[in-house]
């Protein structure tokens, strides 16, 4: 079962309401996405911690329902 970009964005937004999110469907198969997520919640956190916040927002779908999500995270300028 694949996920739509809209579903991914909604899950991230629910956990990180201020997030600016850009999602690209890399292969057009609903299974390989790249996402850029900018949020104040990331400030002062390591990259690993930032990605863990996004993974937590996606509730364990990454690596399961969602095969591949290339992530880039950061704090808004």
């Amino acid at each position: 079962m694949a996920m739509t970009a809209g579903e991914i964005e909604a899950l991230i937004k629910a956990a990180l309401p201020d997030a600016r999110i850009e999602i690209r469907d890399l292969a057009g198969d609903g299974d390989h996405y790249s996402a850029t997520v900018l949020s104040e919640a990331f400030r002062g956190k390591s990259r690993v911690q930032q990605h863990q916040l996004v993974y937590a927002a996606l509730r364990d779908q990454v690596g399961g329902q969602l095969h591949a999500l290339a992530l880039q995270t950061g704090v808004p300028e």
Partner: protein
Amino acid sequence: MSIDAFIDSEVKSNDVVLFMKGTPQFPMCGFSGQVVQILDYLGVPYKGLNVLENDELRQGIKDYSNWPTIPQLYVKGEFVGGCDIVREMFQSGELQVLLTESGLPVNTPAGA
């Protein structure tokens, strides 16, 4: 030994450990292959552990790191990240700094 204890001992007794799909010689996934290429380019010695050979390890490392995907890179017992973070750190030069500061030999690019 529990899988948790096995992983703990691997990451603490080897300076650089890569949990990956396939082997450094034959990566079985593009993301694992990218990290292999970076480590090989830097010439840093590392141990590759193939999670495809062991389902318990495949799930165990995800629980150990609280990280849902493979590959996963450890340096000196610390989780550095997956493919995206390793690539970002390599491109910015942070990975080279981390390895050097950990006392590990890193090839410096020609002319640098």
